[in-house]
């Protein structure tokens, strides 16, 4: 059990830098904003790079999905909080 409370936890999470994905950088590079095309084609990008980007994104999505599921499945933790309405500690 850690003594981490809400505010330092918030501070830690807010200081986490945005994840830099090779795919995100390539997405920005491949964008041609004034053509009306929203998703650029991967044609012309090196095949090995496409493979790396796809694996990276797929693994990232799977990690996020697993993380979400684990948070949903967390057991309730008894809180050491004084609740005056009920007069209990």
């Amino acid at each position: 059990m850690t003594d981490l409370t809400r505010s330092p936890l918030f501070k830690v999470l807010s200081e986490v830098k945005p994840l830099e994905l090779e795919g995100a950088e390539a997405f920005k590079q491949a964008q041609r904003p004034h053509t009306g095309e929203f998703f650029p084609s991967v044609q012309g990008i090196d095949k090995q790079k496409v493979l790396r980007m796809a694996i990276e994104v797929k693994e990232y999505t799977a990690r996020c999905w697993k993380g979400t599921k684990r948070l949903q499945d967390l057991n309730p933790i008894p809180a050491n909080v004084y609740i005056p309405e009920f007069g209990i500690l």
Partner: protein
Amino acid sequence: MNIEEYLNIVGNLSLAVMDDPTALLALTVAWLDPLSVIEDLDDLVETDLTDFYHSGDDMGAALRVSRDCFPGIYAEAISQIRDGVEYQQTSEFISSEITNLTGIPIDEYEEPAAYAYGIPMPYYGAEWDESDFIESNPLLTKLALLLGATCEQVYLSEVIDFSKQSYEIAQIVYASLWEHYDNPVHRSILWAIGHATSQTGNSSVDYTYLEGSEWQPLSWTSDEVDYASVIIREAEQIMSESYDGLLHIENSPHIRQTLIDNIEEAKRIVDRLEKEGQKLNDYINEQNKNPFGLRWDDLHAGVVGDTATDPECIQLRMDVA
């Protein structure tokens, strides 16, 4: 607002959206892996591939397999769909790319069936009870007869029968060639005998399609795709070299004579062991594959320009000289 102004606004909005890390992340995921966005990941992972087949969703099966095992091909296929390429063409792109990458013969099957029932494997096993196989493989049939197999008439068809004795002869000759595995000529003959008598150890080479279809197929997961690919690539190499071996035996009297001499020697060994009530497998094992000392040295001088020099053998000949 004219179209140019509209495109400018859309363009500026796109640039603004990309400045936001969360939006950029979401766009990247939607760009490369849209299935994870439009479907529940649990459903996506757990849906059985046969469900795609039974619902006639060929594209779904191809995308699912490519997403699971070939993310690069999947990303390219998604891009093609966005570019307006027809489903059929994209589906063919996925299957041909998988075949090029792994050797898995998806094109030889109806595509959805190729995905639905595990990884389809090629089988080259000698079908000695099929007259069509015998007719279309004359060189392999000649080798089988050379090894002591017999040609028998069953109803109106001719079949090849390997007796226990002929199989043991083939086993001795085959095992003795392993000592010379590094020499391409020896290896080609090794594989030719191995293919004829189904003892290469590669299931694609040793078993027929009918035999193979009785097993639980490998499933479409990355590890099993890698495993299937190794088997298939090795089988392709064995089959190619095996054919070279059959040509050597057919076209080089010198090689054929050496092979016949060793088959005769193996026959004497099998007869002797039978008389003495001994078993062949007590002699041949992983540590000693040529316990009877069959000699293949003469093969080195058999084919001009086709043989690899065996330094040990050259040394032997120099010593004799």
